[in-house]
């Protein structure tokens, strides 16, 4: 049973800001929210992680509302190279609870010129 829900796909154009939202209604107190990016024929790559409010790094921002039941990955000014599948993962591998270590099917982002 998937613990997160994301849109299956999104389209955008170069230079636009893209926001991908993930729903995680059953998030637990100790859970972190982590986003990964995956290109074809490669393993997923860590993008950003947060617990609450807002986190920003050189690649993206992550917005988490107070109830933590959802999160939004924001990619500023996307380029063609941002075309990939984006996964939201909620959990903490230290809990050793495999229900927490389940990736959803991800969001396929297509960026057009």
């Amino acid at each position, binding site marked *: 049973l998937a613990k997160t829900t994301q849109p299956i796909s999104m389209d955008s154009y170069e230079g636009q800001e893209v926001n991908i939202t993930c729903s995680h209604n059953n998030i637990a107190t100790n859970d972190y929210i*982590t986003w990964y990016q995956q290109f074809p*024929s*490669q393993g997923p790559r860590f993008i950003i*992680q947060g617990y609450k409010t807002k986190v920003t790094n050189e690649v993206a921002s992550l917005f988490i509302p107070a109830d933590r039941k959802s999160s939004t990955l924001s990619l500023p000014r996307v380029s063609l190279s941002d075309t990939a599948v984006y996964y939201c993962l909620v959990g903490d*591998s*230290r809990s050793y609870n*495999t229900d927490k270590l389940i*990736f959803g099917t991800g969001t396929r982002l297509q960026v057009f010129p």
Partner: protein
Amino acid sequence: DVKVTQSSRYLVKRTGEKVFLECVQDMDHENMFWYRQDPGLGLRLIYFSYDVKMKEKGDIPEGYSVSREKKERFSLILESASTNQTSMYLCATDTDRGFVNYGYTFGSGTRLTVV
């Protein structure tokens, strides 16, 4: 940067063969994971290990076993390969050090075809 190396990028095996997929990491991470990825199904956890000689079943352990004799190496074993095990297999690691978990580091994957 942590490097996670999977022994083969592409592998073709026959039905009934015993198959070993190897994963080696070079940064002394405690936790190692095996996932398989199939179109439309995302990534599914097969087994994971949080210490040498320790293993835990994931979401879909049937038909698989694992071995972790050394901290840096985590092997996935298909006891008797079947065509429904044709998939992309991904190894990942992470560490428990510190309060914050910095997420998984994945290998490049092994695409296994069972014929």
